[in-house]
């Protein structure tokens, strides 16, 4: 089994290369392994940003394999910061301020990997007013179960203690269920509008709750048809079954690369292809407008918006906070930062109900104009 051709800068910078399961780029199994391993990339980046003070996250260390700890370059740290805070902002506006009599809401995170959001949310809201689902390959959910089992901090947040334990783990140790957190080992490609309802395949999903779907660099690895089917599965099944039209409020957040057709974009596509990573929907959803059109096609009629990371850094981050972040590290290459940041976007679209709208907080977030 050949070691992958240097898929990660860390391994070049600190010590010997880690071996990684890889059956070659051409067999489907091998491709999946590479996609699964992108989670490590993301969590190492997050750990780097946390250790340097960009982000505050007590849980990332417990969820990142210890041997992979490293320091990323400043532009990667800033990008991780903008990505994380932008999505946090959208999630916070979806959940709204905490109150004991809040209506329950639901978040479903696709390809969540070692993401820490559930732990951060649980520790910030005294009685959970939400139910949180993560769906990922079994190898990634199993790793998360192992991380939870070996960390008393994570267990404490999930409410696992000697006297009371409402958490169950599957025999194969890759599924976890608790009152407000569910970890589903599932290949997303099985989901389509024709798939039977979520209750059987995703135990714990409540189809009548206002729901937020998050895809952080996840659906982009599927084929356009597969990716659309996953979304269609949820837009169809998350529904008040008494009516003809699906009316349950549903929002969707994408964080994805865009603009593959300029020199930076072309280089990105070929560099990632050399690692065996294929961004399959990138060309279809290549621009901010294509992202907005995608929501319209998916029936998220109440609103569609998108902004690239450069825009979000400039317009969403306050001056004082910008100064704080800029002071953490000398960010030398401004042109390189803008170039990189313009090739990632956050897109958000939603359908809402007229009475008691759920996504009102998304309306006044500044989105980027223009079709490019």
């Amino acid at each position, binding site marked *: 089994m050949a070691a992958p*051709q*240097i*898929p*990660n*800068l860390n391994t*070049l*910078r*600190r010590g010997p290369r880690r071996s990684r399961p890889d059956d070659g780029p051409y067999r489907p199994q091998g491709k999946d392994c590479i996609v699964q391993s*992108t*989670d490590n*990339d*993301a969590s190492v*980046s997050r750990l780097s940003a946390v250790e340097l003070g960009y982000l505050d996250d007590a849980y990332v260390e417990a969820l990142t394999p210890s041997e992979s700890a490293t320091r*990323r*370059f*400043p532009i*990667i740290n800033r*990008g*991780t910061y903008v*990505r994380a805070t932008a999505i946090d902002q959208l999630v916070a506006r979806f959940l709204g301020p905490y109150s004991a009599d809040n209506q329950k809401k639901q978040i479903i995170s696709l390809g969540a990997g070692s993401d820490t959001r559930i732990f951060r949310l649980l520790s910030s809201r005294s009685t959970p007013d939400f139910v949180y689902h993560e769906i990922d390959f079994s190898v990634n959910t199993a790793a998360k179960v192992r991380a939870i089992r070996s960390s008393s901090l994570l267990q404490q947040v999930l409410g696992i203690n000697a006297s009371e334990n409402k958490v169950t783990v599957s025999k194969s140790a890759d599924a976890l269920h608790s009152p407000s957190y569910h970890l589903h080992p599932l290949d997303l490609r099985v989901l389509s509008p024709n798939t039977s309802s979520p209750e059987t395949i995703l135990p714990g999903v409540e189809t009548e709750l206002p729901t937020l779907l998050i895809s952080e*660099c996840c659906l982009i690895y599927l084929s356009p048809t597969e990716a659309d089917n996953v979304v269609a599965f949820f837009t169809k099944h998350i529904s008040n079954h008494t009516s003809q039209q699906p009316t349950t409020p549903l929002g969707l957040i994408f*964080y994805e*690369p865009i603009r593959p057709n*300029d*020199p*930076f*974009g*072309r*280089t*990105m596509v070929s*560099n*990632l292809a*050399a*690692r065996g*990573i294929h961004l399959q929907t990138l060309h279809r959803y290549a621009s901010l407008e294509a992202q907005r059109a995608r929501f319209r096609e998916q029936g998220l009629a109440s609103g569609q918006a998108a902004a690239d990371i450069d825009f979000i850094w400039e317009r969403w981050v306050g001056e004082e906070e910008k100064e704080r972040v*800029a*002071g953490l*590290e*000398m*960010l*030398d*290459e*401004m*042109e*390189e930062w803008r*170039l*990189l940041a313009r090739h*990632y976007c956050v897109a958000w679209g939603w359908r809402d109900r007229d009475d008691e709208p759920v996504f009102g907080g998304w309306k006044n977030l500044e989105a980027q104009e223009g079709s490019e």
Partner: protein
Amino acid sequence: MSDLDGAIEQLRACRLIPEAQVRELCYKARELLIEEGNVVSVDAPVTICGDIHGQFHDLMELFRVGGDVPDTNYLFMGDFVDRGFYSLESFLLLLCLKVRYPDRMTLIRGNHESRQITTVYGFYDECIRKYGSANVWRYCCEVFDYLALGAIVLGASSELEPTAMSGANGLSQSTMQIDDSELETEVLNSRGEVTMSTYRPRQRSSSDTSTDSRNISPPRDISAAPGQTATPSRPGAPGTGASSNGNGTMHTSRTGAVLCVHGGLSPLIDSVDKIRIIDRKQEVPHEGAMCDLLWSDPDEIEGWGLSPRGAGFLFGGDIVKAFNYHNDLSLIARAHQLVMEGYKEMFDGGIVTVWSAPNYCYRCGNVAAILELGEDASNGGTVARSNGNYARSNGIFNERVVSPGRRYRVFEAAAQDTRGMPAKKPVADYFL
């Protein structure tokens, strides 16, 4: 010298030299650099290069495109290290060439030639990884402290010798060549084919121009330089906007001098002489004139602005015009900023950014460029070291400084595995 030639040969093959030899090399380089002023004088012809950033294979491509040392004179404007995976090989090779051919190689300091920056951006880690200790990093940093802060290129020709076109290719675009014009800029690809040319009206003799005062630029205070002679000219192409006040601090040639500096200007520096009096032999400070020279950027603003980099300043076209005017400069050449096309002229050709790291960080998809300035052979090859009494015209005392002819050679990233050199497959970080 055979030791040195051996080291050059080894480094050219992308193989490191032993630590003891690095120490000796750095010691020799320091002895050489300590004799240089903060602003080195360089005679044209010279090829000006921007950031390299440890992209060794691309540096080899640069030498292939620009000509080998010592056949071509080079001026590297700093940022030899960090980011790429071969900072050591790149910097040590350049340093060997500097020691071996001191008059044909000029190295000035970039903001990455600093202890603090190299610990963040990779050079320190590379030294530890390749030599097992920080010794070599320390030797190199001591050399950094002695690198000049800038250079002045004298004796550049205003006119390029057109590159012979091989065959009829359809690549070239140019401004219309009119009678009595001279070739001002030429852009060549890495195969040596001309892809763009611009022309400007040839400088007239004094009898011709004396009646032509339609467009003397830039506007200037006539009383500022009494006793100076003048050569007004017809409206020229962009890049001809500077003129001289002959304040006696600078020698000018007909084309005016070219100031080379890594970053740009400083609000604390209004003359080249002020650069000369900086005490440079230190780590790059966080602020002040020395810091600004290595960190600042030109921008489409008026006056000075805060830099988003957190060090240095932004400076506008008015600042550049005034600085060039007061210092008999026809051009500022600088590096420091990634430009996708490899070079970028701003402010009517008063300043140019030259960027020499193609596909920067193996990720950016940009091309690189080097800038060739030709030798002015009109004086029989002698560089004019003083203001010439060119022409007197209609009572306006004005010596016009013409920008040098500029040949940009644009090149792409080297194919890494075709040269028989060790090459790691490049890897770049993305958000996944």
